[in-house]
């Protein structure tokens, strides 16, 4: 398998570039015709909400408000629901969050139903209304800082690998870090998975996992090159052999991560059923896919290519 990947290393690299290019293209198109390069999550996105308030004397625990809201709004596809218990100076508040694409007419109609329910129950202090919440765009700087930190760390890893192993391995490792982030971003753009600040953290985790697996792979390659019994062996054979032997560790890492994410996702769904709950887990699964592709295919292929260039120069 690894031999095949190494033989088809050009294609493997081209596939990586194509995935990234498609992601960039989809993101760019969506930037102009849809909701942005990425489908930004709740932290960065504007939204509509229906806010229902009831005074404490009329609705001590807020249960009436919750019941009325549930009856009128449960079918409208809110992606999040919050309840805030009232205080001496503030009423009970139930807030249903909707994407900006939600129909104004449907929301307005639901609010009228709620107001009718208030009248029926003679709740004079209660109120309901549709609010448009426009996000203040500023989350980019946080993503930027995360990118700077990861870039610095990837560069340092490359420097470290250049001294510890070989310059070709360092370069290949650096390309892997760039590729894993590129593929992750491309897959997020293509799948339109909601991107919150957590997605930046998952990018860091993806780079870290790639660093771990690259470390295991290059150490194996170095040992294979050093082994006196391999002096006459073909370089590609050794790289393929190392990739095959470390693939077990790398596959185990990816499978373990994927299983863990699924377990967390299932329990999160139990806690709060709904598509919004899954967005963070979906982003993390995409990160795992990017990792698996990068160190399973890209890293051996890119190092194979660099070795070939090195060989031809010699």
């Amino acid at each position, binding site marked *: 398998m690894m031999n095949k990947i190494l033989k088809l290393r050009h294609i493997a690299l081209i596939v990586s570039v194509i995935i990234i290019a498609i992601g960039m293209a989809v993101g760019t198109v969506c930037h102009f015709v849809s909701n942005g390069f990425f489908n930004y999550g709740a932290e960065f996105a504007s939204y509509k909400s229906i806010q229902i308030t009831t005074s404490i004397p009329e609705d001590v625990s807020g249960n009436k408000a919750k019941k009325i809201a549930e009856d009128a709004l449960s079918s409208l596809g809110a992606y999040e629901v919050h309840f805030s218990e009232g205080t001496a*100076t503030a009423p009970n508040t139930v807030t249903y969050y909707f994407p900006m694409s939600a129909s104004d007419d449907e929301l307005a109609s639901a609010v009228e139903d709620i107001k009718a329910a208030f009248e029926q129950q003679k709740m004079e202090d209660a109120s309901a209304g549709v609010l448009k919440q426009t996000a203040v765009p500023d989350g980019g700087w946080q993503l930027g800082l995360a990118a700077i930190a990861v870039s610095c760390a990837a560069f340092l890893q490359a420097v470290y690998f250049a001294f510890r192993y070989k310059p070709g391995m360092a370069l290949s490792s650096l390309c892997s870090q760039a590729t894993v982030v590129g593929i992750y971003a491309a897959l997020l753009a293509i799948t339109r998975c909601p991107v919150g600040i957590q997605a930046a953290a998952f990018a860091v985790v993806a780079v870290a996992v790639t660093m771990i697996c690259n470390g295991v792979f290059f150490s194996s390659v170095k040992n294979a090159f050093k082994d006196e019994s391999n002096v006459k062996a073909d370089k590609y054979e050794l790289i393929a052999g190392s990739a095959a032997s470390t693939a077990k560790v790398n596959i185990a890492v990816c499978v*373990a991560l994927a299983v863990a994410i699924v377990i967390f996702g299932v329990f999160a769904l139990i806690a709060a059923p709904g598509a919004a*709950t899954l967005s963070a887990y979906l982003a993390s699964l995409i990160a795992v896919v990017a990792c698996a592709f990068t160190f399973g295919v890209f890293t051996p292929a890119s190092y194979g290519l660099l070795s070939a260039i090195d060989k031809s120069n010699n």
Partner: protein
Amino acid sequence: MSKVKSAIITSLVVIAIIVAAVFGVASYNIGAAGRYNSIAANIPLGSEFTGYVYTTAYPEGVIPADRYVALTEEEQSSYEAHGGLYVNLGDSGYDTVEELESAVAGDAKIISSRFAARGLADYSVTVTDGLAITAAVPSGLTYAAYTGNSSVDRSNALNAASTTLGYLLADGELTLRTSDASITLGSDDEDDSSGSAVDMTRFEDEYTDADVLGDGSKTYSFVSVNEDVTEYFNSVSSFTFGGAHVVNFSLTQTGRERINYISTLAASSSSQTIYVCVGSTRLLAITCTSTIDSDTLQFTMETASAASDVATALNSVVNGGKLSADYADIESALATSAAGGDLAAVLALVSFVVVLLVLCVCAAIKYKKLGGVLSMSFVILSLVLLYALFILGIQVSYAVVATCGLVLVLFAAANLVVLGEVRAQCAKGKTMQAAVKDAYKRTLLPVLDIHIVILVLAIFVASVTHGAVAASGLILVVGAIASYALYWFTRLMWFVLSAPQRNKFAFGGFKREVYGDDE
């Protein structure tokens, strides 16, 4: 090593793990009134697990629906509906709704930049129907506080979050104030004769009657309305050193001279206090017993959070971040339910335990007794992470949970590399002890490599980024160090456990075939 020694060491380690695990995750009632809340229940949680605290700042003349319905019909007639809000332009001080919207939009950007500078794990700032600003920060509750099992912690966390919102949404001029209407100068004052009185009422301004101190008393600015106090300061920052949480003011030359004068007045006053206020929000009360003459001023505060809130708000105002619209006083901040559902936190812990169990079971099935040793290390690593989260006060979000998973992956990868090598050595016919010894020798540098690389990454992430990502970096630093330490601890435990059964058990399906090769 004898069997007895091996058994004693193993038992002690297992007992320590069990005790740490019980204190770590089990909460229980003690007697009728008391309750022990576990370490896990005392870790601050992110908004996914315990929700937000939010408030809305309404400009003068703008009210929400619940306030509108409480008005009389006559009062309602002066308001116009604007989306879900109601606006009375006469009270707002703006001629058109568009002008007010523009001012609010500008203010929202300033407020958002304040929240960003504050370095919170997570926050949101939105403009509501163009005319109000809603800001939310994580409640920062622990699970015990969220479920009502620690009312003091709940109250403290909600107060801290409300204070953060109050300070970062502060609008108005920066003023230095006193509650003393007249100040009798002491004899050490150079400008005024001994015993002369300074009438502070001449500096009455729009905030004099605002209840800045919360006791209904008036306050007066130390300087005239025309003087721009922001010119006194270059910047305001905060830091924590040796357990002290400090707000640090860097003064301009003008500021140094004026603070010298103001502190002389304050030291002569009966309250001996300078109140640092933004609009009607009092941010800091400086006790002043003598004249201050320095380029920097440093004041300690009770908590790092409070110091950071004050420094961020003041630094924003000092550097041109004054809000343009006048906002009504914020009456209350409300806590929401958890975004991930009420059971999100406990189910996340259950998920982690399930993942840990799966890892342990897989290790034990695949590598038999040595897998059991590895499982023990997995549990210890998880407990180290749990206690580190508690001790460092890291707010746990999805990102932090993912990072904890990454630490387990790091540890698993390091051990998989070793186990693979042990298996290879066993396949060559070596004894267990020889195989383990050889495997550790051969994998020494690769395992060190990956830990160094991850540690460097973690340090960069922790020091360069903010919020949830920085928190992830911090726990990754702890995790990388713990992983490497436990890697050697696993080696030790293999030695302890395998010593009494020298040459007697197989590893991962491979049985020793060649005898007498124990080096």
